[in-house]
């Protein structure tokens, strides 16, 4: 098992999943990179998470985000959860407006269900999703009194991007979605949320002739989506979103019409895969993860708060089974600027370096340092056991190298490595060969891990 194989697999699982335990990582390496990618893009082959256990131990809607984080940590099909998070980024829908957690969580469930399928089906489900309908006011989009909010964002932020349609296209797109609404749900009080199903009201639908992107006829919402997914602009737009989310940070979406992609060839490769597969997202993902540009993109992304939190939890090995307290990690991502289910605007979260400012960095570092400070956690115990297995006392340089390996593997710059080594040198040779020695050096290990997860490099995924 070469170090490069391990590092590459760790990269894949940070991006296509939420990190791994060391044991999981080694099992993936044995399986082989292409095989792992193939399994990731075919979640139907894997064993789904045990929904009965989730229902039994976490079964209340208030803890949905915590339960989602539990899914991220424990799903054997982690790309499915990552894609739910991806679409949540792209089709940002705010709980703050609808205040209906069941509608919002049903939307995430929908992303999980269809998120790796065809773009046509994804957009159709999105257009019928009550949380989205309410978020962008399509429940007020009626024949004779259209509301263009959904039609505009569908084209601008969800599928084509600015510059690939006209104002008239927006107006006609909106008319095609008139009457797409949802059944009024029973209100929350006094007995809880009820799911609002989609409703098409024929009497409120505009059946007039419309022209959209050069197509003319009595177009409805389905027709609009069929036209959208055939546009090369759609392929490029979604490909750039996938590149930004999985490969390397791009500028924020509103600037995409004036700022070209950092790797135009990569976007074209993905767009070709999109067009050649009738917009099948799992195929595009397969091309992406097997591409050289992806393999070369290690540590070229700032971890989102969700990725940072789940990565740390994978490192320390907690929540591998149901236990109380998972909901606190929803609060942790919120403190770092990512309140799941409630993105700040329809643009979603600004990513890359915008994940970090002085306050947010403090929240990220404090969280990571706190989580690795308990030596009794399974992941820390696993590192101790591996250091024991190493046999000989470790030089300070070897101790630092081992800790970086087990915490990632993480690549750090010379300055960081120098600081870490200087810290380790204060303790001479470091011995984990027996229980007494391990106990003696446990505090040193914790301190070293705290320094590593507090480093600049650890913010990158």
């Amino acid at each position, binding site marked *: 098992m070469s170090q490069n194989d391990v590092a590459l697999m760790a990269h894949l699982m940070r991006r296509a999943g939420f990190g791994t335990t060391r044991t999981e990582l080694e099992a993936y390496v044995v399986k082989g990179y292409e095989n792992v990618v193939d399994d990731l893009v075919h979640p139907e082959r894997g064993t789904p998470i045990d929904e009965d256990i989730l229902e039994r131990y976490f*079964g209340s809607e208030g803890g949905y985000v915590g339960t989602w984080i539990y899914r991220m940590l424990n799903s054997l099909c982690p790309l499915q959860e990552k894609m739910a998070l991806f679409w949540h980024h792209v089709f940002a829908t705010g709980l703050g407006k609808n205040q209906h957690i069941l509608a919002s969580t049903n939307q995430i469930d929908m992303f999980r269900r269809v998120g790796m399928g065809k773009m046509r089906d994804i957009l159709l489900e999105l257009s019928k999703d009550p949380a989205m309908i309410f978020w962008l006011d399509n429940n007020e989009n009626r024949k004779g009194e259209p509301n263009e909010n959904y039609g505009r964002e569908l084209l601008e932020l969800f599928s084509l991007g600015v510059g690939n349609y006209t104002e008239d296209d927006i107006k006609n797109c909106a008319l095609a979605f008139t009457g797409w609404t949802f059944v009024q749900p029973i209100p929350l009080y006094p007995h*809880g949320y009820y799911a609002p199903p989609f409703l098409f009201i024929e009497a409120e639908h505009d059946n007039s002739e419309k022209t959209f992107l050069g197509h003319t006829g009595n177009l409805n919402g389905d027709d609009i989506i069929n036209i959208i997914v055939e546009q090369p602009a759609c392929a490029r737009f979604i490909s750039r979103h996938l590149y930004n989310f999985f490969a390397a940070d791009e500028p924020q979406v509103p600037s995409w019409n004036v700022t070209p992609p950092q790797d135009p060839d990569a976007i074209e490769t993905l767009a070709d895969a999109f067009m050649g597969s009738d917009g099948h997202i799992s195929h595009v993902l397969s091309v992406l993860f097997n591409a050289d540009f992806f393999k070369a993109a290690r540590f070229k992304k700032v971890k989102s708060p969700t990725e940072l939190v789940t990565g740390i939890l994978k490192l320390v090995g907690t929540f591998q089974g149901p236990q109380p307290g998972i909901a606190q990690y929803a609060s942790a991502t919120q403190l770092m600027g990512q309140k799941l289910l409630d993105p700040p605007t329809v643009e979603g979260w600004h990513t890359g370096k915008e994940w970090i400012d002085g306050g947010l960095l403090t929240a990220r570092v404090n969280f990571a340092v706190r989580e690795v400070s308990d030596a009794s956690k399974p992941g820390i115990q696993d590192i101790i056991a591996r250091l024991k297995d190493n046999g000989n006392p470790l030089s300070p340089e070897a101790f630092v190298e081992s800790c970086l390996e087990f915490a990632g593997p993480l690549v750090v710059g010379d300055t960081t490595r120098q600081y870490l080594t200087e810290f380790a040198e204060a303790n001479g040779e470091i011995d984990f060969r027996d229980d007494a020695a391990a106990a003696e050096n446990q505090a040193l290990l914790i301190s070293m891990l705290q320094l590593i997860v507090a480093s600049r490099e650890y913010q990158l995924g």
Partner: protein
Amino acid sequence: MGRPYGLLRAGFPYLKCLSMRRTTNFPVDIAIGKEGRLYILCRSDNTAMIRKYTVEDEDLGTMGRYGQGEGQFTWPVTIIADSEENIYVSDEYLHRIVAFNSEGEHIGTWGEHGTDPGQLNGPAGIAFDPDENLYVVDSLSHRVQKFTKDGEFLLQWGSYGDGEGEFNMPWGVAVDELGDVYVVDWRNDRAQKFNAEGEFLFAFGKSGSGNGEFNRPAGIDVDLHGDMYVADRGNDRIQLFNAEGRYVQKFLGDATLSKVSLAYMMTNASPNRMRDMADLEPQKYLRQPKSVAVSDDGLMFVPDFGSYRVQVYQNMAVPLTEQEFSPPRRSVTLHQE
């Protein structure tokens, strides 16, 4: 008083609803106290408590606190009352039993985590026998254990499997007035009946959504007639079986607004309008009930987990003597006598 020779099942109508969201959030179980007092166990993320109510929907306040300290609970599953109205709660995370008096004062905690006889590993259902010994469903060890009320180990039975007397993460338990024990075998989608020493008597139910079938059943109770009530959580219903395990009927929910709900809604114009725009039928149905409790006077209480309330039904069954109930028949008949 022995069991009747037979029953004239005159009806089992819905009676009323108790409480609402903001008070009984996510009720998981209910204990029946004296003089109409009820103890409703509520559990969700990072919170758990006991709401004390009456059958007349009066809120008597809260008892117990979420936590891991003395007298606290983290993942409570079942609540029961003894003959003195002391309250016992199982905690499947802290692997212990916590007891309070009826005023909520902590009076005892016992339980040690482990899989040896007398240790607890995810205790779920608990129930007293007629002598007030305590049966505990030790869910993660797939067994039932019997203790004195103070936690002294008496006996155990069961192991992992799906054969007779075996379990797969069992959940609820009930004991009848004769001392027989009924266990809901959660992951095997069935219930099993044992005598007081753990000898297998019979099982009923299988996976499915038809009458008499289960989808991850959670709770069980038995009334003075020997009728058995199973909280069929995954099918959003309660099912009633006779003493032999024959399916009798199901309860899907018939909720109306409780007294406190009505008072709340009278000062909330917007939700009143929304209710007027909505299809209201779903609001009457049960949502993921995890338990059921029946009182000696024929009331059935269903903590309606997903709707933050308790639905109450009244059993109108009339006991029949041997003169009023003909002998059992081997065959069905069309003959009208």
